[in-house]
């Protein structure tokens, strides 16, 4: 594994040394291809699977009876239909918030404590790993976020409004960067999230392993860092704003093939 990571770093640095923008993009595509059999995300995925099947928490129970929307215990193909409405909580929930629900109901963890824990710390690291595992169980499947329940349709409309909400010192909205095709920030290509940006792009790529900082990022962390760069205040973990944006992006990306957990620059 170490050798592979060193190779990534080497390729990344040689990629940065290339003179032309198109060469750089071609180089990034090339090293992504070379890495597809050795994506470090798989380590997190394996850790997540082990967490899922290991008795933990005050109730010393596993996550195996967790209902991710397709019935208790069904992990396969659940991710591509999230976020969705759950009758037991009366909420539309995304993957990470649903995992927390199961950690509370099945294992007896303290919800408030998990929500307050920082990214990749304590039980949040476990939420990350389990999210990566569940996402991996939908590999190559098409995104199919439901709009059957009234609350799912309401969350789409809320997500759309948040997506276009300009504010803060830079007047940025999500839409500032993600509402047109074929645009870039510096050399970074920007997916157009107002429609289906294509298989494995945008919504269909997260959770993803980020080569640049060596971190595994689930969607909650991805959105958190978008809002940081947008110069907004911080979105709370699993808040309705983040879930509504997930519904908006997911419904727009209908039929895009999920490659999560992906590998990113």
């Amino acid at each position, binding site marked *: 594994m170490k050798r592979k990571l060193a190779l990534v770093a080497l390729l990344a640095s040689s990629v940065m040394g290339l003179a032309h923008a198109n060469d750089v993009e071609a180089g990034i595509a090339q090293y992504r291809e070379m890495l597809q059999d050795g994506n470090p995300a798989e380590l997190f995925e394996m850790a997540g699977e082990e967490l899922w099947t290991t008795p933990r928490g005050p109730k010393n129970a596993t996550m195996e009876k967790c209902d991710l929307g397709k019935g208790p215990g069904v992990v396969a193909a659940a991710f591509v239909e999230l976020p969705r409405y759950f009758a037991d909580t009366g909420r539309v929930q995304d993957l990470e918030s649903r995992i927390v629900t199961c950690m509370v109901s099945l294992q007896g963890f303290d919800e408030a404590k998990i929500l307050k824990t920082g990214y990749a710390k304590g039980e949040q690291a476990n939420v990350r790993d389990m999210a990566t595992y569940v996402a991996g169980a939908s590999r190559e499947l098409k995104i199919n976020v439901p709009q059957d329940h009234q609350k799912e349709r*309401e969350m789409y409309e809320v997500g759309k*409004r948040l997506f276009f*909400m300009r504010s803060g*010192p830079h*007047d940025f909205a999500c839409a500032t960067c993600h509402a047109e095709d*074929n645009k870039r920030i*510096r050399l970074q290509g920007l997916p157009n999230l107002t429609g289906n940006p294509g298989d494995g792009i945008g919504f269909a790529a997260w959770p993803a392993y980020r080569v640049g900082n060596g971190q595994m990022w689930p969607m909650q962390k991805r959105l958190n860092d978008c809002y*940081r760069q947008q110069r907004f*205040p*911080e979105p709370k973990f699993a808040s309705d704003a983040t879930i509504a944006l997930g519904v908006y992006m997911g419904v727009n990306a209908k039929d895009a093939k999920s490659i999560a957990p992906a590998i990113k620059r």
Partner: protein
Amino acid sequence: MKKIIPFALVGATLVLAGCMSTSISSADADKLTAEVTANSFQSKGIAKVERLQQDEANRLCSAANVAGKPLAADVAAAIEAAQLKTIQWPTDGKFLGDHAKGEKIAQSGKGLTWKDKADRVNGGNCYNCHQISKEEVSYGTLGPSLYNYGKLRGVTDPNSPAAKAVVEYTWGKLWNARAYNACSNMPRVGHNGILTEAQIKDVMALLLDPQSPVNQ
């Protein structure tokens, strides 16, 4: 009158279909969004929740995007007129600073996030969206290319009367881009205090000084 009825029916059917597909009126969705927004964010560092309060220009431009249609011409004109009034012209009458300093400001995308300290010197974020000098190949494409900005506009002496209109427009555009385009995506660099007056002068020089690499 009879001829109009079928059209009215078609209209009513479309409205009904619209309601069925969303199950929520636009006004109710706006209200719900306000509630969700109020409950979902927390102040962190210098990025306080007050940043979520939109001014009139942002509120109107965001709503137009949600509706998927541009602002009415008179509404856009009113925004532009109001934004134009916010522009502060250089206090000493000098528009251009140092183009080399301007390049550094254009390169930097730092500042104003929740990780940044309040006293941090902000960058202009310019290269994130614009091509500027030929030497920098890592540039974004959200904004138009600014390569040869002054040269293409015939600026040979920025202090000359001939260059006055371009120089003033460029200053105004940097200070508050929305004085000229109501819903421009460009940050209101001066108006929102992203860059100081002295920094804006340096960026002006980067764009307009005939000696700047931009104009070679």
